[in-house]
């Protein structure tokens, strides 16, 4: 297990480095003048060539590309993720301030997806081709199919136009005001949770249907084990692995910023930060947030892989 962990950790380094190179090159290929972002159209236009040169020098834009890349890696190494071109804020400030909101939404959405997906999936699998199964499948497909941002917009518009209500728009943390915090994160978490829950229900159903046909389940039943125990101990434990894989992907996506849903709800999480930065060509923010998302994915995937061995005794890494 330790060897496996060490090997996986070693692989993380080239993966992340490769990603930094791709991000860096992609950002350099995008059109855009950072000085316009900072000083506006009028400001950039009215600069003398000398002023432009001084400002570009100060921003490091006159350094060779390799040097710029090296400086970025150095900054990452020191935990200094650069500063937004369009805001007087650093990327670290964004992550520290908005990251907890996104984390909260992601965790809540994943938990909610299990709370919805497991019961629906189990009932569907145990009562196949019944009305309950059809209803479960219908709603699963419905929530998978409906784009989350659309559902979010409908929810926001309904609340505003019918109830003159809008959830808080400034970050409120659970330790500051749990009720306000819940108002802020509940909408995105429920919308994402419903979508993910549909997936989970589908996966649990198909996986469980497959498992309950296995010999060991038939044997357990033949030995007179109670049906609930058969499902809980023998079938579900094996059927859960694909759900864990999918859930880790969901969590990664949600942690990486539920971009469209945060935008729809206007929740100041990292997803909203990302989409605003992309639209504004705020390259340092895009560059560093993409890197953050990659790292999050890599770490979540690693934890997921390690959890397999714990969940399924047949899996051994050494």
């Amino acid at each position: 297990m330790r060897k496996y962990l060490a090997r996986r950790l070693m692989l993380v380094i080239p993966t992340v480095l490769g990603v930094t190179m791709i991000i860096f090159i992609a950002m350099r290929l995008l059109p855009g003048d950072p000085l316009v972002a900072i000083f506006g159209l009028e400001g950039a236009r009215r600069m003398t060539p000398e002023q432009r040169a001084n400002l570009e020098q100060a921003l490091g834009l006159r350094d060779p590309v390799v040097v710029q890349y090296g400086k970025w890696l150095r900054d990452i190494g020191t935990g200094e993720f650069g500063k937004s071109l369009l805001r007087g804020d650093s990327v670290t400030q964004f992550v520290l301030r908005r990251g907890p909101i996104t984390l909260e939404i992601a965790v809540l959405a994943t938990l909610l997806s299990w709370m919805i997906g497991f019961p629906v999936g189990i009932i569907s699998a145990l009562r196949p081709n019944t009305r309950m199964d059809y209803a479960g499948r219908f709603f699963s497909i419905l929530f998978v199919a409906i784009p989350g941002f659309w559902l979010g917009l409908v929810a926001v518009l309904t609340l505003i136009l019918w109830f003159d209500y809008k959830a808080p728009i400034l970050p409120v943390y659970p330790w500051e005001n749990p009720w306000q915090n819940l108002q802020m994160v509940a909408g995105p978490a429920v919308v994402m949770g419903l979508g993910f829950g549909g997936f989970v229900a589908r996966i649990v159903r198909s996986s469980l249907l497959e498992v309950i046909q296995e010999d060991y389940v038939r044997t357990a039943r033949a030995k007179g084990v109670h049906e609930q125990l058969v499902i809980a101990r023998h079938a579900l434990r094996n059927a859960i692995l694909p759900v864990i894989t999918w859930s880790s992907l969901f969590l990664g996506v949600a942690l990486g910023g539920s971009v469209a849903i945060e935008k729809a709800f206007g929740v100041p999480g990292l997803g909203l930060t990302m989409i605003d930065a992309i639209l504004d060509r705020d390259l340092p923010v895009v560059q560093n947030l993409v890197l953050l998302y990659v790292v999050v994915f890599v770490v979540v995937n690693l934890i997921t892989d390690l959890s397999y061995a714990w969940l399924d005794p047949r899996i051994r890494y050494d």
Partner: protein
Amino acid sequence: MKWRLRKTSGFLGLLVAVVLVLAIAVGPAAMPALAAAPAPTAQPGEPFYMKAIDHDKAKRGGTLRLAAHGPPSMFDIYASGTIANVGAQSPMYDLLVRQDPRDPKLPIVPSLATSWTISSDGMTYTFNLRKGVKFHDGTDFSAEDVKATFDRIVFPPANLLSLRSLPIKETVVLDRHTVQMKLSEPRDSYTFLALLAGGWNVITSKKALDKYKGDLKQVDNFPGTGPFMYKSRTTESWEMVRNPNYWNPYAPYVDRIVHVWLKAWTPELAAALLGGQVDWAMWLDPSAYQKVKANPNMSGVLWLAPNLSSWIGFNTDRAPLNDSRVRRALHLALDQDALSKITQQFVPTAQLMDYLPPPYGKSYEELMTEYPNAAGTREKAIADAKKLMADAGYPNGIAKTFNFVVRESPQNRQLAAYAQAEWERLLGVKTRLDVVQVSAMVDRQVAGTFDMISHAACLGGADLGATMRMCYSINKATGKKSDSNFTNFKNAEFDKLLDQFSIELAPQRKAQLGRQLNQILNNEMPNTGLTTDGRAYGWYNYVKGLPKVGGNSDYNTYQWDFVWLDK
């Protein structure tokens, strides 16, 4: 001309004096229309202190939440061209003189300067400064701070930017509370005072400017004397609290203001206002503005920005666009009012405008009833356009496909598509739309690598002569075309008249010169689609003390010192 505000005068007397003197000095041509406004009174013996409209009923305290267009990308207000800076930072600072925030149609009123004298040649302004004023860091305000501020603005260090164009040759400290500005060329008093009253010329301390060597880009809390003080700034908002030592004993009325960053014209902005998360919002989209107007608990106002703004500029260096007949033909082929209608899908209102505002140019009402904009003259305009093309040697259109650079935005794309279709349909002029992102526009504008270009807006300002020079003439310091002269417009007669217009002090003569300048631009037609956009503001009725009419000012004159909350 010489006048002085007496400390012993009542405010009503002062206001009348200001109005009369300016009326005599500047005359009706350059005077803003005076609106009937309540005249607050001041106690005898007090210097010039303003109060909120309805001061006697005003409640104190509370938090005012503003949906602000921001955040600023940096904090050097003198180097900034965006409202994100001036809007957010203004409450922490004072100006030397200011526009009356209670009614922007009133003349300039004192702020840190309590009175001033103007030499008869219009070249020297002497300001008497308010005494007993302190910066937020506790240092005393004096004439040295005014000099340091205007030196930073007018003569920025080589590595720093200043986007303000002030005709100041020298700022001289006469004594601790008297400062004199010597102008590089004359300006009529209204123009110069209105320039100083621009929200960008905030007074900061010499100590701070020395400490940071004039570079305030990273300094979000450089000390001011304003009604509100820095409290905290986050990635979403900027919070300021009441200055307990503010020099005006009546202001501010609220304890705290929070600027919440919400982008203009977005659903998020509308949702925040309509959902009650902010008390006031600027630059609403048309739909949100209609909802505000329909809500009995809310109010709104539309303000037409007096910018020299055109949607399409022609590169007058390139053939055949160097022929004014071709440019005029292209102009006539477009239904100018239709351009405004397209714009109205994106902004609450837009109006066709002349190159220069009245009294130099025509008003919207005049334009809409006269050729070529009147509905009944459209066919004649199209016939004239075709004749102009034939006269220029292009009776069957032009073989060349023009490069039409369009700034990326739904509004610009639609306007450009309309122009493209009409030019090809009516005149046989083909264009290729080259849609570019905003930051790539600068390169195209400066390099002149286009035939036509959209969003050829040229920002307005109090000094119309300076704005025209920036948009249609040469930079006198460099001898090259001005930085906002996208169309590469060159006209010797225009330049000569512009020189005279800028320094003319006599109102009648100035109006005559302005009309001549406007006529040249109409003949030469370097742009088409001259439109002024309306900006919509909305707020809840419990927010009191806001101007009830649109004026010649925007968020940049708001210090929020006379706003109070009725709740």
